[in-house]
């Protein structure tokens, strides 16, 4: 581990040491590749450290069924990833996949959710599990819901994990397998060479292959290697409350109780550019909603709020691509680094390592889909 970039030589350079980069890097190292991860310093826009920790299926890919398929595959692979990482790192990732609830405060919301997921189910030929529960039925599973809750949509494949332990376990497992992490200022320059790439300013590092996992940084890096990464920031805020005794055995899209007992409340969505600060107004609205869902939380104290920037493509779906003009350059970007970690490590990385595409629909995730048709 070094904290000066300097110069060196590697087979695979993974740009970005967040959950996406580390999952891919771990997966590549696992395939027997020699991998160096280039990470930023202590203070950076880090989606991986501000996320909600859901391993979440329901609702993903309503507008792109292949994304729904890919998400379900990753969620199904998660127990394997967790077991492997736990064995290698000694950490408990607190993975639980008991199914999860998207709680709706009024009938309109519930009906809209049902319509959305019903349409997705139809497009997937009926293979898409979810259940719509009204207030009374939901109350039997979540006895503490408030009187104003209309109901919820239950997704049997949903779950949650500790995203910070995931990050640490990936780091530990990757470095234990001989992977190297080089930290320092963000990589701004990548130059294709006759064979391979130069990483960073000259003299820089030399890599045979490069995988862009730099989140929002990909937008700038991708064109340098013949790729396109049209991603923009989208701020999410999370409230973190003091530890309480266990009261919530299922994750919900709005509130979850983490392993050590703290209650997390999320998740707002704002288009505010590169600003990961937190705002009291949003926090207030989130608090209000959480108390409507679980009234007994009203006297629970918020100890911290988090703002983090999601990495959003135009349609909100991942972008996986391989450069046509600069062979050996890959792009991996998404905003669901936790949910997709298993897919990235156990399926996508073997493809980047030279294997066959992991799923027949991989092409769907190419940035080609954003190409503007010439008609005006």
């Amino acid at each position, binding site marked *: 581990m070094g904290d000066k970039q300097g110069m060196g030589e590697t087979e695979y350079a993974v740009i970005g040491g967040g959950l996406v980069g580390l999952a891919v890097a771990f997966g590549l190292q696992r395939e027997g590749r020699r991998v160096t991860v280039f990470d930023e310093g202590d203070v950076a826009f880090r989606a991986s450290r501000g996320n909600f920790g859901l391993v979440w299926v329901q609702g993903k890919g309503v507008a792109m069924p292949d994304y729904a398929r890919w998400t379900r595959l990753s969620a199904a692979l998660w127990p394997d990833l967790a077991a492997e990482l736990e064995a290698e790192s000694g950490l408990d990732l607190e993975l639980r996949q008991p199914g999860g609830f998207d709680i709706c405060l009024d009938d309109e919301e519930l009906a809209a959710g049902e319509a959305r997921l019903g349409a997705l189910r139809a497009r997937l030929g009926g293979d898409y599990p979810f259940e719509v529960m009204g207030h009374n039925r939901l109350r039997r599973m979540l006895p503490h819901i408030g009187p104003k809750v209309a109901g919820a949509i239950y997704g049997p494949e949903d779950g949650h994990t500790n995203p910070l332990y995931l990050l640490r376990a990936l780091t530990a497992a990757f470095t234990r397998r001989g992977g190297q992490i080089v930290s320092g200022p963000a990589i701004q320059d990548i130059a294709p060479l006759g064979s391979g790439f130069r990483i960073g300013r000259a003299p820089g590092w030399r890599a045979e292959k490069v995988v862009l996992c730099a989140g929002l940084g990909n937008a700038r890096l991708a064109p340098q290697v013949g790729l396109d990464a049209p991603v923009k920031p989208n701020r999410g805020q999370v409230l973190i*409350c003091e530890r309480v005794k266990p009261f919530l055995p299922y994750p919900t899209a709005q509130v979850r109780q983490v392993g050590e007992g703290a209650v997390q409340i999320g998740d707002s969505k704002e288009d505010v550019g590169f600003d990961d600060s937190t705002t009291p107004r949003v926090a207030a609205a989130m608090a209000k909603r959480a108390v409507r869902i679980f009234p007994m939380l009203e006297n629970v104290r918020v100890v911290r709020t988090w703002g983090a920037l999601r990495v959003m493509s135009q349609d909100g779906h991942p972008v996986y691509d391989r450069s046509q003009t600069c062979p050996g350059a890959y792009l991996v970007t998404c905003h669901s680094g936790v949910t997709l970690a298993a897919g990235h490590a156990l399926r996508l990385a073997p493809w980047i390592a030279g294997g066959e595409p992991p799923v027949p629909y991989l092409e769907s995730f190419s940035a080609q889909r954003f190409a503007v048709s010439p008609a005006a």
Partner: protein
Amino acid sequence: MTKNVPLIVIGAGPAGLGAAAEAAGAGVETLLLDEQPGPGGQIYRAIARSDAARRALLGPDYARGAALLPALESGAVDYRPGANIWQITPEREVYFTRDGKAQVLQAARIVLATGAMERPMPFPGWTLPGVMTAGAAQIMLKSAGTVPQGEVVLAGSGPLLLLLASQVLDAGGRVAALVDTTPRGSLMAALPHLPGMLRAPSTLKKGLALLARLRRAGVPHYKGAGDLRARGTEKIEALRFTAGGREYDLPCALLLLHLGVVPNLQITRALGLAHDWDPLPRCWRPRLDSWGNTEHEGIAVAGDGGGIVGAEASEHQGRLAGLQAACQLGKLNPADRDAKAAGIRRALAAQRAARPFLDRLYRPAEAFLDPPDNTLVCRCEEVTAGQIRDFVRLGCLGPNQTKAFGRAGMGPCQGRFCGLTVSEVIARARGAGMEEVGHYRIRPPIKPVTLAELAAMDPDDTGPEGGFDRDDAA
């Protein structure tokens, strides 16, 4: 609709009281918010209800705080104690809860006078019940009228330790031992700063008098002590340490620690202001101009919260910030401001001249900056120095990464008591400087706030712009 206030002063210690008095005196409508139940901050704690006997016991450096009270008593300043301030935005909205009611005010200007807190003094066992800060014992003396008794051991370094020991003796108490961790050679190292110290001769004289007082009372004084370990299961039973090549194990019912004080930076950090590392006193301070202005328009800092200066200098800085606020609010023209400031600046300079000597003399021993592996550095989440070093080995460069890896700084104190130590440990483990390692990014709320209190800040039920995330919660 958020209520507008021309000036909000945060903190009713010497700096805040000085700022409020000066601004109100110039005709500025001034609101003074403080989390404590009475004015005075920690140094003049409970000054408003202290009687003559208490003031005599605590000495003239305490009693002089009474001179700051008239502006409150006359009603010139709108003083609201018991205000739990949980967020201040760069746009100068002040969110706080008082009497169970959450509220927000919009200030045209803010003076932050959040004062100092004890420097963490981590060593194995420092979390046991019965181990407290020396400042805590002084707060009890001032506010509850209690004096330490029985097997009382004072450990650490710095003038407050001597002052507290002397006050305990004056109140008829007993000090079982003074375990002085000031590294040998500190006096020699501080001597180059002596000329500055001599510009504030009373400070030097006071220090020497305190030492003489302890000697006369026969308080055992262990110099150059190190390798501290507090022993006990349910509470402290003994303090082990080495001094002069010998190992000691002193029975102890109350252990009072002191290693100097450091600025309380939670608000300036949460505001995202620039902070600089001050190598001599080994702490951070916000970047300020000579009036105390920060880089955020309309937000100033005065007193120990901007770098440790002591009570008198804090009051001077408060007055300067108060004058500047009055000037910017159009209640004082620049010429009058400068005329009033001139004398204050002279007094301030004399006070500050003594700091380098004191900072060097009482620089904390290395073992407290970079404690042994088995020492809890994060009291809340129970993270040890050894774990922090492990995270550095895993690749962490700074405290925000170690926080993500091991929760240090994520507990209810929000990093107040571990921030300095964690960064010092990382700096040494990496062989990097403190500026390079940095500090925790402090996130609001700066004090825990209930969901109901937060929810009350969304009265019109608008919700966040852009709506809640339904499909994409990752």
